């Protein structure tokens, strides 16, 4: 059990002067910037948790003049709304993070791929971008950022589908390898980071890697912005130190009747009450891109699961078989069990199918459908059947 109490942090939304930080960073060598990010232990905040410093290092080592920085702002995971707030509150810090990354890997162009539903942010972002562009010019750093809008497809948050979308094609994930750091946007070395990750790289430059590293646990350094929703009296956005248990989280945010927490959105895991104490929110336990949804005893977990599967059956890009057909089978399958058209043993078949989806689907989306499915079915079997 974790000993760390729920600790509020103020790094992401702290108002700072990016100019000062960037001027300081300009004095550093790319290797030093990368080393500081590696030392900080920062892992990607989009959910997958790849070490950010390593990603930058891989991209930096690639030869060639054309490299890109991409900010993944296609925040589409159900229950996640923190990137919207970050882009609304501190956009200049996001730009600054991209500029730091551009120094680190040697890129001249950056793209922000903004979720289509966040169109209302565009005028503000464009204003701020103009200021930022001026700052870059003043400081003599050759780096330009362009804004691109998605059109509402969940799959375009998957990095390679996102590239396809920016390139003007249907957003479908690519085969990996090659990974983006080798062949990403326009098939050039690309560093793609989440909005929040980029802001943390700025704060690491401001306060130093050690400051960040001291927060959190061995596997989950630093803090993280959480989007808290569901049956909670205090829904909203909170920046918390990583490493707390679900119990500690529920004690603060729950309504006293929490029976389960969905950590990481539709693609994440369902943690039932009996596992609250032992489950750490972080890469050693259940990772999350920020979505924390609380369910109290008034909720039917069948409905919760049905809702998620409905979402996936619609939002799968449809390219690969396990995801396109698998999602439909899981959805129709639990309906059939509920209606009694299939026996409850059919759920076991579906769990096996979900396991195949996890290892055979082409991209992270298809591979993660099984997370929510298995964790809900295993813990709330009765609710699914009866």
């Amino acid at each position, binding site marked *: 059990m974790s000993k760390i109490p729920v600790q509020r942090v103020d790094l992401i939304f702290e108002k700072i002067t990016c100019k000062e930080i960037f001027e300081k960073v300009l004095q550093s060598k790319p290797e030093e910037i990368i080393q500081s990010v590696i030392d900080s232990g920062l892992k990607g905040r989009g959910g997958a948790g790849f070490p950010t410093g390593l990603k930058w290092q891989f991209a930096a080592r690639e030869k060639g003049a054309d490299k890109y920085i991409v900010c993944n702002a296609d925040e589409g995971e159900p229950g996640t709304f923190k990137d919207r707030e970050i882009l609304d509150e501190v956009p200049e810090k996001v730009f600054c993070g991209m500029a730091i990354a551009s120094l680190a890997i040697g890129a001249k162009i950056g793209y922000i791929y903004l979720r289509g539903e966040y169109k209302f942010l565009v005028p503000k972002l464009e204003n701020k971008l103009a200021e930022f562009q001026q700052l870059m010019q003043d400081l003599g750093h050759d780096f330009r950022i362009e804004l691109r809008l998605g059109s509402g*497809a969940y*799959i375009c948050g998957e990095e390679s589908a996102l590239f396809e979308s920016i390139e003007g094609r*249907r957003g*479908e994930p690519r*085969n990996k*390898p090659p990974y983006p750091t080798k062949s990403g946007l326009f098939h050039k070395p690309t560093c793609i980071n989440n909005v929040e990750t980029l802001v943390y790289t700025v704060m690491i430059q401001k306060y130093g890697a050690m400051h960040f590293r001291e927060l959190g646990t061995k596997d989950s350094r630093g803090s993280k912005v959480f989007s808290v929703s569901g049956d909670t009296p205090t829904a909203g956005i909170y920046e918390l130190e990583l490493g707390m248990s679900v119990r500690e989280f529920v004690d603060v945010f729950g309504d006293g009747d929490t029976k389960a927490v969905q950590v990481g959105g539709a693609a994440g895991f369902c943690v039932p009450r009996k596992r609250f104490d032992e489950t750490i929110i972080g890469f050693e336990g259940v990772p999350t891109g920020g979505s924390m949804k609380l369910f109290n005893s008034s909720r039917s977990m069948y409905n919760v699961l049905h809702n998620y599967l409905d979402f*996936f*059956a*619609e*939002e*799968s*890009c*449809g*390219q*690969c*078989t*396990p995801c*396109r*057909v*698998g*999602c*439909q*089978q899981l959805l*129709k*399958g639990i309906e*059939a069990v509920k209606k009694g058209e*299939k026996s409850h043993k*059919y759920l076991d*078949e579906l769990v*096996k*199918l979900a396991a*195949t989806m*996890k*290892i*055979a*689907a*082409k991209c992270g989306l298809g*591979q993660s459908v099984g997370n929510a499915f298995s964790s809900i079915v295993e813990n709330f079997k009765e609710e699914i059947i009866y």
Partner: protein
Amino acid sequence: MVKLSINGLLVEVPEGTTILDAAKKLNFRIPVLCHHDDLCVAGNCRVCVVEQLGGKALLAACATPVAEGMQILTNSLKVRTARKHVIELLLSEHNADCTKCYKNGNCELQDLSNEFSVGDHILLDLIKHKDYTIDRFSPSIQKDDSKCIRCQRCVRTCEQLQGVNALCVAFKGAEQKISTFYNHSMAEVICTNCGQCINRCPTGALVERTYLDEVWDAILDPEKHVVVQTAPAVRVGLGEDLGLVPGERVTGKMVAALKRLGFDAVLDTDFTADLTIMEEGTELLTRLKKALVDKDKNVALPMTTSCSPGWVKFIEHTFPEFLPNVSTCKSPQQMFGALAKTYYAQTRELDPKKIVTVSIMPCTAKKYEADRPEMRSSGFKDVDYVITTRELARMVRQAGIDFTLLKEDKFDKLMGKSTGAGVIFGATGGVMEAALRTAYEIITGREVPFENLNIMPVRGFEGIRQASVKIEGCLEDWKFLEGVELKCAVAHGLSNARELMQAVKDGKINVHFIEIMACPGGCLGGGGQPIPTNQEIREKRAAAIYSEDMNLPLRKSHENPEVQLLYREFLGEPLGHKSHELLHTHYKERERF
């Protein structure tokens, strides 16, 4: 070189090799559905997944390059379970009414489901939740989404191989489907009817519109005189669908089979291929004369061939500004049809009303071509029914004929005689070669200066090829061509055609004559040819075509005695009045959407 182990056996392959190909080297076949040798990697269907020891997720063997020290299992428990799941999933979304399916017995999904004994599959039938209709509006292609497994081979074929983009992926998730612009029918979009998608479809989702019953009805109607013509490329492909290996010439057996099927006359499209050379060659020389002697600036050069109906429809949609450049000659199929109901009817004293013309084509676009309103110059529909090589094979099987044991037979007289020049129409570069053999000789009175008449520079499989022949020692009538370097270009596959025409448009390529075939490899790789077709098979069919040419006593179109007779007794001269009426046509600009 990269060393790895597959199922415990060591193998060494060049860097960049896929796991699929590395396994092939060890004689392990990994099943595939979305993979096709002609197409780029997709990694969609996931039926080829393999296990990497120590790895979490399985890898798509078709899409994953080998890495040093990899330990791959192609048949582990994990792999078997996943593979079976994938096949079951595909079947659950597939209209598996196999016994009624046109592709029954030649379906890759069926084969796999049989191989993996998916008889007891228990997943829910999803088909009943979907609303599918069959698109039968195109005269060439039938599209049935209920049988589609979304492997996207057709989309990649249409986009990359053909550069047409008539087929695309639409919608997502459960609604995802292979569609067209605004989901219009295949008859209303920029589809060229080339049928390359059909040739690559692993299931029965894309098949040719079949006219077998109509052909049988005609054959079995004693009132009708049914004339059949066979395209050059059919004789080097048909055997593949009837128990022989790729690359076998089956001309004699094919003729014997057609006679046994009951056709009243078994004639040859190669005859009208020779005739096409006479007309098209003369047309080219006329255009050159207008340009060089009369200094006519309006004459459209380079002239392009017109025998590939896929190409014709493509240029109508895509480069309408070049329509004056397209030879006005009908394709050999349509020349044949027009003559069958005029010249042939007259000579054989038959009522053209009672003649039914059937053509056997390696092509699905020919079905569309025969339906074009311009193709009625005999006063009737010139070609009544077009069936593919595959359909002919089916007829042979239906009639209970053991093809392999047939004794060779000869084409009937009158429009049955051909030269080697007509035969090579079936390969990319063939029309060009045939035209040069004749044109050069008309101009100079001497044979083309290539060993054995084999004009090697225009042969081969490179997407776009250019060649030139210097004309020297002209006969009196053709002095204006003295010293001219006759330049020509050849392209096959519509992506290459687009590239070539764009280069012509941009002034980057400057030639007199262009041959374009819509299908990769030319007609021998046509959309109506046996499935599978891939580069290895195309090369074998091409070798067969060229050996057929070498083995014929006559190899120049103008030496075809039946063609000479035709001009003497019926047409008069190339580009004469009657030719214009029967053998030439016009084109129309078509919209892109």
